[in-house]
């Protein structure tokens, strides 16, 4: 990041002049030397912190409210405020003891679906991306563009067709019919090529000389791919994996059609049902579930932050 440090007397750094706090201060003349620097500091930098802190409050208050709700033993909307008055872990205990809302089961289901879908789709995407990056074959350009086009259409637009399709598959193969986790996983695998473009970009940045050297040394195509190229793109695999994971975690529309039995629900449909059943009084338990679900994801996000910034600017949108 290149940045010029401004010196006294220079033109103020480019800033939004329409900002009211800045204008107000401009007329209050500084009186002492010490106040000059403080006044200028506020005019040029300090007001930015004011806005930054307002933004932080805006971002954080809803999160604090949920934390507070999860610790509030009464658990109703009316008794919850941003800062808790009484603290208890009753809601968390209730989450794991009430068999009508098998949170642990939902969590496990979500993990099973996410892991299966993420691993398979990263595997398929990375394979295809490699072919598009390294081979020149007939129809390459056409298939890349077709792929890009098809991916613009969200799969859930065909939800009704998928519902009918899996009703009839289930009559022959009950193991992947409606109302099964495997069926739901299979549907989501339709998006297995979702990360091709992102990964292809990274394959393109690996010099081809590397491949040629490996082939000269006698590596087969399979060995070259799995032992040499794939380890080099590990970071981007991690990020696309995380983005795919977030996508699966938030997938609601197909889950609501495919997973109707309480025991096989994912967190998205399970928690929706929990809150929807009684929006006023189930808040505490829901909040506890929300906290437990969010913490691992937030930690992953913070850990992979710099990669994510690169990843999203390359074009993926959170699902």
């Amino acid at each position, binding site marked *: 990041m290149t*940045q010029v440090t401004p010196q006294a007397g220079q033109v103020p750094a480019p800033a939004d002049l329409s900002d009211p706090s800045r204008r107000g201060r401009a007329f209050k003349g500084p009186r002492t030397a010490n106040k000059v620097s403080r006044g200028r500091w506020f005019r040029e930098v300090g007001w930015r912190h004011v806005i930054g802190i307002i933004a*932080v409050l805006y971002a954080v208050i809803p999160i604090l409210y949920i934390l507070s709700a999860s610790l509030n033993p009464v658990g109703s909307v009316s008794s919850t405020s941003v800062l808790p008055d009484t603290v208890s872990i009753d809601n968390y205990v209730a989450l794991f003891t009430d068999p009508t809302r098998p949170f642990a089961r939902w969590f496990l289901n979500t993990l099973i679906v996410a892991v299966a879908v993420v691993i398979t789709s990263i595997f398929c995407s990375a394979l295809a991306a490699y072919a598009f990056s390294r081979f020149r074959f007939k129809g390459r350009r056409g*298939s890349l563009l077709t792929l890009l086009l098809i991916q*613009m259409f969200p799969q859930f637009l065909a939800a009704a067709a998928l519902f009918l399709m899996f009703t009839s598959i289930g009559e022959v193969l009950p193991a992947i019919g409606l109302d099964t986790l495997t069926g739901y996983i299979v549907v989501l*695998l339709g998006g*297995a090529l979702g990360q091709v473009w992102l990964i292809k970009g990274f394959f393109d940045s690996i010099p081809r000389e590397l491949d040629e050297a490996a082939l000269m040394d006698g590596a087969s195509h399979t060995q070259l791919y799995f032992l040499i190229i794939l380890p080099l793109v590990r970071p981007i695999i991690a990020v696309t994996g995380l983005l795919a994971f977030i996508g699966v975690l938030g997938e609601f529309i197909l889950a609501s059609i495919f997973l109707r039995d309480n025991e096989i629900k994912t967190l998205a449909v399970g928690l929706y049902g929990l809150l929807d059943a009684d*929006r006023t009084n189930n808040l505490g338990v829901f909040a506890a579930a929300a906290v437990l679900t*969010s913490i691992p994801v937030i930690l992953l996000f913070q850990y992979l932050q710099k990669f994510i910034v690169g990843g999203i600017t390359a*074009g993926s949108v959170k699902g």
Partner: protein
Amino acid sequence: MSRAEDKGRRRDPEGRTERSSGVVGLLIKIVALGTIIGLAVMLTPALVGTDRWGFLAVVWGVVAVLGVTYATRRFVPAKYLVPGTLLLVLFVVYPILMTFQLSTTNYGDGTRTSKEVTVSRIIGAAAQQAEGARTFELAVGSEGTATSGPYTFLLLDAATDEVFAGTPDGLTELDPDTVTVEDGAITAAEGFTLLDRRQINEFSQRGGELEGFAVPTDNGVITAQGFSAVELYSPLEYDAAADTITNVETGVDYTPVQSGDRKLFTSAEGERLSTQSWEENVGLDNYVRAFTDPRISSDFVGIFIWTLVFAVLSVGTTFALGLFLASVLNDARVRGQRAYRSILLLPYAIPGFIALLVWSSFFNSEFGLINNVLNLDINWLGNPFWAKVAVLLANLWLGFPYMFLVCTGALQAIPSDYKEAASLDGATGWTNFSKITFPLLLVAVAPLLVSSFAFNFNNFNAIFLLTEGGPFSPDNPTAGGTDILISYTYRLAVGGAGQQIGFASAISVVLFIITGVLAALQFRATRALEEVG
């Protein structure tokens, strides 16, 4: 793996062939292909038995593609492309094509079955037990395994102890020696696997293989009633040539009369025989209805406009706030930028569905956070206007961190020389921003804005998890105040009463087309076409 082992077969200068990894690879290949062929072979009898020829073709088509790709040494790129492409074709492309096909039918509640089945069900529903009708003890036999079928009713006449085999083709008497009868029930029959009672129950339920199973006889039909069967007589007769159902007792004729998107058997006096209709090809009627039927089109057009407004404002507000914060905080003199960024990332890191559900409780009009903290008394989710505002406010919170990250990245990529040069030329901060920074930034983020627009255009979760499309007016339960096209389609296709899958598919197709146009715009914006080369 050592370097020596790393050497494969083809270009090995010392002439060594098959390495261990080559053998392992070959084994994996053989096992995987073998498993897939085995699965296909296992599925085949069941598919043939139930006449699912299309399904069978798909199964063996997949096997053929995999075989050609992996069992030969040719088509190297295909070896990398086939797994994902097969999944894409089966579970994305095919359903899209199926949506197109469904959109030209009236498929939905009351029109799920073919005309033939509907007619036989109407006749069956009117059936009654005739005087002195025969009753049977019922067992169900399968010529294959218990789950594969085809099935036969094995009937023990309660009065005469005669044994019959009944299929949809008719009734035939069985040789008593081939059947074992114990305690007045058939317990075994040569050539058949008998189903146990649990299986009979399960298969007789809605959608099961035995649902509507009927054996025609000279006097009527034999149908199952629990674990016995009775011969029923229906006063209705269908004449296929005249396409008329006649009640032979009253002499009234019922002919198909169009009612909305379906035909119902109706008498000359307008009496309907049944509310059951059948699946028919209706051409482009569903599309015509969406745009011309006065009641539907007012819903449709209203929802369409709100979908556009929602998408534009969602992108606009998140971008404006994200850009504002990025410009304010992206200054070398601001300390703690990292901390700011980590905290402002939080709304983006929280799983979207959780954030949306949380926000829906904030808008609770009596005790919700927003009314309490801001001391307002707004019926957020009960009033169509405020519900729209609520949806946008919640979506702003969810979306601004993404735009903040994107804009920060784009701002940092703009060379500072540009701004310095402009400053030296006397440009003030605002001119600098609006004439230099903003246009450069816009070029960089335009593709992301388009894709964000496309995403919000179909942002089902944001609507459904916050408001479920509501509020609904009492006279219109299908279109709510905050419905966007995709949530409206969802309700038509799978929501509670009166599923209209055909019509919902037509709206999905409209969404496909709009999404395609957006995709084309994005193509142009990203110059993806050049990158391909």
